[in-house]
């Protein structure tokens, strides 16, 4: 059987290659042999599905989901919202999105993060949600800060939020990062610059979306995600 939902081949020219020496950690973690290209079988076009009962009511509210005794995290209050679509422009509905980030000072709540900036007692830094029927999602958080990292001696990450997206096929699985409009660190960041295509980088930069802000309360940024599309082959081989 040839699956009817075959994915469009991934365009590797818009993705970072495995070996990008200016992001030094890739040097020892990049396969050197060519990937074997596989035509899709059921193994690639299927994927886990998640239900609303698995997601808690505060999972998409990073301002409140780690609150200790009603306190709130320090930082710029923002909403991040957008659509998940496939390359055919169709909404990807009911798909699980997970996000994680550092706090406003640039510190992650993680046993391995030893940056001098303090932890925020009211900020965990993770959230998740399912897209609705239109592929729309939103969550509330505080804007993450930039932080230094050990690559070159003076390397700094631009403010960013990590996104994990499932889609409905294992071949659509994607992890990426969202950046913020106007951040001067974006074009100096060895990790962002692993992406060889400038237009592809721009698709990871979320514009300020004043129309979606809550007046006197919370700013908003729009971030759309595009997953691989599917063949619309009128003839099956």
């Amino acid at each position: 059987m040839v699956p009817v939902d075959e994915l469009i081949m991934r365009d590797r020219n818009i993705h970072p290659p495995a070996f990008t020496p200016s992001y030094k950690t890739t040097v020892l973690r990049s396969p050197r042999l060519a990937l074997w290209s596989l035509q899709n079988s059921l193994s690639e076009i299927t994927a886990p599905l998640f239900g609303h009962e698995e997601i808690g009511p505060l999972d998409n509210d990073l301002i409140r989901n780690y609150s200790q005794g009603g306190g709130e995290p320090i930082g710029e209050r923002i909403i991040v919202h957008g659509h998940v679509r496939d390359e055919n422009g169709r909404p990807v509905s009911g798909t699980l999105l997970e996000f994680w980030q550092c706090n406003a000072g640039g510190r992650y709540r993680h046993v391995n993060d030893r940056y001098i900036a303090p932890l925020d007692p009211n900020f965990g830094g993770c959230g998740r949600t399912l897209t609705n029927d239109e592929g729309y999602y939103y969550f509330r958080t505080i804007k993450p800060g930039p932080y230094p990292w050990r690559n070159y001696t003076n390397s700094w990450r631009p403010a960013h939020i990590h996104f994990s997206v499932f889609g409905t096929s294992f071949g659509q699985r994607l992890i990426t990062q969202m950046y913020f409009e106007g951040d001067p660190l974006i074009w100096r960041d060895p990790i962002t610059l692993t992406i060889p295509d400038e237009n592809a980088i721009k698709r990871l930069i979320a514009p300020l979306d004043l129309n979606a802000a809550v007046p006197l309360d919370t700013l908003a940024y729009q971030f759309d995600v595009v997953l691989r599309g599917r063949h619309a082959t009128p003839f099956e081989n």
Partner: protein
Amino acid sequence: MVQELRYLKESPSQTAGPYVHIGTMPHEAGFEVYEKTFGNVLAGPETEGERIRIEGIVYDGVGSPLRDALIEIWQANAAGRYNHPADRQEKPLDRAFRGWGRSGSDRQTGLYFFDTIKPGRVMGRHGRPMAPHVNFWIVARGINIGLNTRMYFSDEAEANAADPVLNLIEQASRRETLIARREDRGGEVVYRFDIRLQGEGETVFFDI
């Protein structure tokens, strides 16, 4: 000028970074936030099939274990059917088996593991059945785009020899990188599946 094709472009991948556990398994980052978390136990008491553990270490190019990776697996049930509507094979679904799990690598040893069941054979393209296999996806700091591979089973030599995907791999010696070794450990069945990102014995990774 020609008409414009109306396709969007896929969002580019970025590394999962060193703190991927915060977003995917916060308990492994050192804190609790969700009521329901996702983990490495795929088989419940009701699940059909032979109980197995899959374990291994992901190694970098100098043979050091990755201790900050995230590994996800996706597999068919014991009858060889995926729990997904695109799988229309006439085989039973198992309501007690989603077929997906994730594991961090241990922060000291780098060991990852899954408690699951052995999958059945799934029909491949053109009516050629595939050998039982588990689909892997690996992300970590220093991995710019998630790596896809498959794990096959050492006790399925006949099915492996006929598998359409293993047979795509030109060098027979490289097929061995995808075959997990079965061990019986005091009644527990363990398949050992080490993954080498680079260098001697580099695992076969797929562009799926």
